[in-house]
């Protein structure tokens, strides 16, 4: 039975930049490589970059990935790469890639550019039509502060790009599992009515989209995972019938077991009978997950229903500024000293005329990361103070009140080495839905 091998070498913008090149060399017959660059706030960061320079607004690190793969392509590799590094400027990203490929003499490589996910104009022109999925508020409330709004597109435009011969496909906002669904649709020629198969490919994409979280990373029994310093990235072998095997390259660390795969299956899902993606509504309730061999786990039994008629939209808006500070306290009553020091900082900022809108004091080491579950009073703790306010000056004032604790705070306080905490803008998340009919994904395939 025909099968294709799809690997993931980037779970988020910040994952190991050397991983794609390493995975491609570890698995010479890899068919597709998927990379994920867009967390919720990535697009906000790219919006700021593009404001300063219109040729930016995409993940520049992707160019380093392309450079690392050029030697393989020059050697005849047919590896295809699919990623959302395009951010707010997929065309700009593609042009920069074309330049690199051309300099390397690889003019025949075609790049698919997918856009149309940007729906900011829709929301700005009819804000009353868009409702926050969590709060129920209308988008009028963020009219003045909205920064970005992007729909999570599905696999269909990517399939079109692949069928037109694209070897690299660059998108903006896209549903992560669609990066895996698209190669399956293109290679196997499944119909869009093959709901169970599309569900299977979607679940396969969900398993690998977080990279090493499928190969032992972020697992409960992590201390038992062999060679985590050399942990392999996941490869999924998808078969024509929709079943798939999760595995990783030979001679790498990590572990692909029923446990590590089940943990990733359950990661960031809601109702497991209705896992929503733009391509399908998938059910996990008939899946079987079995160890087929060393570091090989086979998943069968996915069931699918038609997708909803709306795209999920991730909008972001400016919501003031924030900063966080860390200091350590050692000795008798460390926790009490740390908490008191935190309260002093907030009080001093108030004395300067800024009653901070929000603040949080956490005593790390005391169990405060998850309050109320377990607590202790260790000999050393880390004081963390996090603050947020609409007024930048309020946060700047806070930032200057940390160092003075060194001489006015408790003896035993230490760790002020990284300078004043940085004042950062907050880009808050505003989830909503948009009718699919209002969005037109655009597919362009370019070459030099």
């Amino acid at each position: 039975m025909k099968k294709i091998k799809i690997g993931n070498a980037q779970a988020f913008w910040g994952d190991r930049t050397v991983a794609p090149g390493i995975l491609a060399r570890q698995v010479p017959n890899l068919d597709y490589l998927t990379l994920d660059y867009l967390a919720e706030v990535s697009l906000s960061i790219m919006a700021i970059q593009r404001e300063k320079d219109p040729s930016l607004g995409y993940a520049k690190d992707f160019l380093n990935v392309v450079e690392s793969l050029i030697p393989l392509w020059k050697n005849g590799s047919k590896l295809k790469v699919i990623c959302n590094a395009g951010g707010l400027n997929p065309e700009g990203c593609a042009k920069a890639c074309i330049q690199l490929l051309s300099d390397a003499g690889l003019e025949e490589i075609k790049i698919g550019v997918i856009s149309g996910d940007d729906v900011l104009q829709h929301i700005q022109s009819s804000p009353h039509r868009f409702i926050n999925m969590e709060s129920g508020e209308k988008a009028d409330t963020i009219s003045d502060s909205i920064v970005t709004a992007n729909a999570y597109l599905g696999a269909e435009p990517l399939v079109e790009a692949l069928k037109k011969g694209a070897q690299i496909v660059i998108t903006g906002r896209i549903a992560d599992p669609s990066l895996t669904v698209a190669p399956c649709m293109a290679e196997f020629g499944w119909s869009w009515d093959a709901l169970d198969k599309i569900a299977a490919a979607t679940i396969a994409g969900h398993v690998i989209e977080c990279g090493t979280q499928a190969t032992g990373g972020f697992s409960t029994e992590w201390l038992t995972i062999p060679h985590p310093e050399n942990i392999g990235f996941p490869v999924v072998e998808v078969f024509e019938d929709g079943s798939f095997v999760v595995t990783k390259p030979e001679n790498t660390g990590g572990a692909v077991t029923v446990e590590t795969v089940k943990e990733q299956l359950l990661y960031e899902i809601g109702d497991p009978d209705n896992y929503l993606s733009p391509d399908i509504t998938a059910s996990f309730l008939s899946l079987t997950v079995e160890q087929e061999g060393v570091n090989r786990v086979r998943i069968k039994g996915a069931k699918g229903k038609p997708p909803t008629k709306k795209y999920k939209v991730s909008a972001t808006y400016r919501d003031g500024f924030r900063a966080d500070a860390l200091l350590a306290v050692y000795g008798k009553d460390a926790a009490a000293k740390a908490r008191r020091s935190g309260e002093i900082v907030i009080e001093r900022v108030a004395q300067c005329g800024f009653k901070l809108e929000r603040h949080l004091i956490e005593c790390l080491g005391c169990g405060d990361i998850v309050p109320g579950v377990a607590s202790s009073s260790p000999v050393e703790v880390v004081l963390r103070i996090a603050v947020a306010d609409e007024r930048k000056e309020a946060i700047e004032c806070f930032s200057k009140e940390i160092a003075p604790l060194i001489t006015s705070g408790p003896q035993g306080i230490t760790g002020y080495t990284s300078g004043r905490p940085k004042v950062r803008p907050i880009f808050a998340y505003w989830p909503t839905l948009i009718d699919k009919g209002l969005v037109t994904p655009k597919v362009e395939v370019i070459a030099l």
Partner: protein
Amino acid sequence: MTRFLYEIAYARSGDKGSSANIGVIAKDSDSYALLVKLLTEERVAAHFKGLHPKRVIRYELPNLYAFNFVLEGVLDGGGSRSLRLDSQGKTLGQALLLMKI
């Protein structure tokens, strides 16, 4: 017989906007049967009362000996807005495993 949940299950948590989810996978079918009775929405809500969940929903995946718990509203605006160190709920799975069962 008092045990900790980590003796009979694995977990993994993550965020979904302002809510968090915790997947709990029982190590075997007997443990799953026990947890169906004991690991209720009320017990999970009580365990996390310090985070003030608006609601806790339990989904069952008997085919995987697993549950998915959704804790609504625990992430206080989520990702970039929440002031908590663990604004993405990545520690909640391990926190749940500390429950006495």
